[in-house]
């Protein structure tokens, strides 16, 4: 019987070997500085290993081959530069398509005077929504903005308490109902409170949900609709929180969440690990959703505005 798969022990060795030999191969290639088949498949392996996905990788590398041939580029370093450039362009195109003022609140026009800007935070279970809300709050506070939080995850055990702990730590009010309450009602009340207390931002925490759950995705739409009863322009931002360790399913997540609630951006979390978050390229290409922020740890200040250059460099480390 032809065996495609090796048994675990063997396999483990080969996996570690693949990684090691690839690195040595790449360095020796760079040293040789020669664009050959091995170099190309090395590039492909790097990208696939970073969760960029086979389809996106093959498309990227093929395009690169054509331009390298056309421009008679022979040095690997130059080809790598071209690839990085292309990767940055993919990410840059999103921001121009969907210019979003969130990371620059001073430039954002308040749609209706005295209404809070509403930021809806969505994503699958455990991606880092609640933690990111605490960090985002801190980020707005640093710009002298007043923030109020809505505990609209009424489903997960102790989700309300979790947000309340963060609220206390950063010193903002958290509007909450009982566990199991209607998340739309929480959002509605929170908006009223934010409006009455003249808050600049209302950030709404939602329960984690898998994008395949029809009813839960409908629930998100409903939260948005309820907010619109107060302010027809709300939510002003809907940010999808994506764990950097996510593989190709990330694209499916972005697709489905975008359908339920038009996304204005992504928050890419857990970049302090070894995952590269390469799926964002496929997301950017297909859906034009820009990355706004990154999460780099469990602490409140482990947070930064997104920088395409850094992410792209990270792929090749």
């Amino acid at each position, binding site marked *: 019987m032809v065996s495609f798969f090796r048994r675990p022990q063997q396999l483990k060795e080969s996996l570690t070997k693949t990684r090691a030999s690839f690195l040595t191969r790449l360095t020796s290639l760079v040293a040789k500085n020669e664009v050959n088949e091995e170099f190309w498949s090395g590039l492909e392996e790097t990208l696939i290993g970073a969760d960029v996905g086979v389809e996106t990788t093959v498309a990227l590398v093929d395009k690169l081959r054509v331009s390298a041939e056309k421009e008679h580029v022979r040095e690997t370093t130059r080809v790598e530069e071209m690839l990085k450039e292309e990767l940055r362009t993919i990410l840059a195109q999103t921001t121009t398509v969907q210019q979003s003022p969130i990371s620059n609140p001073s430039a954002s026009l308040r749609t209706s005077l005295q209404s809070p800007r509403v930021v809806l935070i969505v994503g699958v279970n455990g991606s880092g929504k609640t933690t990111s809300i605490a960090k985002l709050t801190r980020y707005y506070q640093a710009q002298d903005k007043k923030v109020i939080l809505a505990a609209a995850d009424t489903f997960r055990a102790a989700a309300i*308490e979790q947000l309340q702990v963060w609220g206390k730590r950063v010193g903002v009010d958290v509007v909450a109902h009982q566990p199991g309450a209607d998340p739309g009602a929480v959002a509605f009340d929170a908006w009223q409170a934010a409006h009455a207390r003249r808050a600049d931002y209302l950030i709404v925490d939602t329960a984690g949900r898998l994008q395949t759950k029809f009813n839960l995705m409908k629930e998100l739409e409903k939260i948005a609709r309820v907010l619109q009863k107060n302010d027809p322009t709300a939510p002003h931002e809907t940010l999808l929180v994506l764990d950097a360790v996510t593989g190709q399913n990330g694209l499916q997540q972005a697709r489905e969440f975008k359908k339920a609630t038009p996304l204005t951006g992504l928050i890419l979390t857990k970049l302090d690990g070894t995952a590269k978050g390469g799926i964002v390229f496929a997301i950017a290409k297909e859906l034009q959703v820009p990355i706004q922020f990154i999460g780099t740890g469990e602490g409140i200040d482990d947070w930064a505005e997104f920088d395409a250059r850094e992410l792209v460099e990270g792929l090749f480390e």
Partner: protein
Amino acid sequence: MRSLSPAQTVVKIVNEELIKTLGEPAKIDLSGEPPHVVMLVGLQGSGKTTTAAKLALQLRKHQQKPLLVAADTRRPAAIQQIQTLGNQLDIPVHSEGNTVPPPTICANAVKRASDGAYSVVLLDTAGRLHIDDELMRELEEVKTKANPQEVLLVVDAMTGQEAVRVADEFHKRVGLTGLILTKVDGDARGGAALSVRAVTGVPIKYMGVGEKTDALEQFFPERLASRILGMGDVLTLIEKAQATMDQEVAQKAAEKLLRAQFTFEDFLEQLQQIKKMGPLSQLLGMVPGLSQVTKDLPADVTDKQIKRVEAIINSMTREERQRPEVLNGSRRKRIALGSGTSVQEVNQLMSQFKQMQRMMQQLKSGRMRGILPNIPGLGL
């Protein structure tokens, strides 16, 4: 007996190997004297706390007396989370607040269970990164002090390529005895399970299939294998294939396919096989690699598309067909002209061909890490 097409053979063999690699269903180890200590570990957000509650419930159904332990002292309200779940299920939770170090909490919990009041102690540890040395050390200490008989890595089914590194590191530091795959109720293929299982060699014990506390299933390799291949009806298709094939012929076909240098001629043959095999819609995605190739083609014009592909390939010289790497810009232009297609179409075909070629090469060399991402949509 009709011979099995290469496509069917590939699927059949890949499926069999997947099942073999995924391993036998394994239950949680409750041998020896109670209390049995079970430790759950994993990355942040992978689903440890929910899984701990689900396991406790399931164990109680099997006449065990579980004790849940709140050993995540770091995440805000993690303790309340497990206490809430414990209350809902009426399962006691051992907690010492968030100022006592987790190894001490766990050791105390085991002591508490030792007088016979509890038969299983479930340690819910904080999520951590595999590269966080300090926290990994803490985990090692928990293990030393609580002496668990099961150390289960909780893995999110949506995890990508890093799954291998994560599992490897956890295994090195705390010696895993099993895996639990979570969020399997989503649409992730769960390819991560395969890599993690392969790299650690430990069995997959359960799958989490929902947010409710009873949504925990025993693991069945056949189901996960067909899910990984991305074909709900793969089993039926394979059975059908098995019923109509001559083992020996099939074997030969597969070996020939894998041994041969994969050229445009093979590519064409594959496409023709597919055409012969009946309704394309049913077969799209049946052959790893081919779902990519045929993905963009609407089912009803596929025959036409195949004709175009044939035309393109027929416009190639023999050399070009066997050594596609010689196809530079000017050759592609000539082929487009000769086949009445566009350079763009030729390029598209090239890229599809390359994906398939890559797939075949990987199959040949048996390098799993290479194979996985090449099974389209594997979900890695």
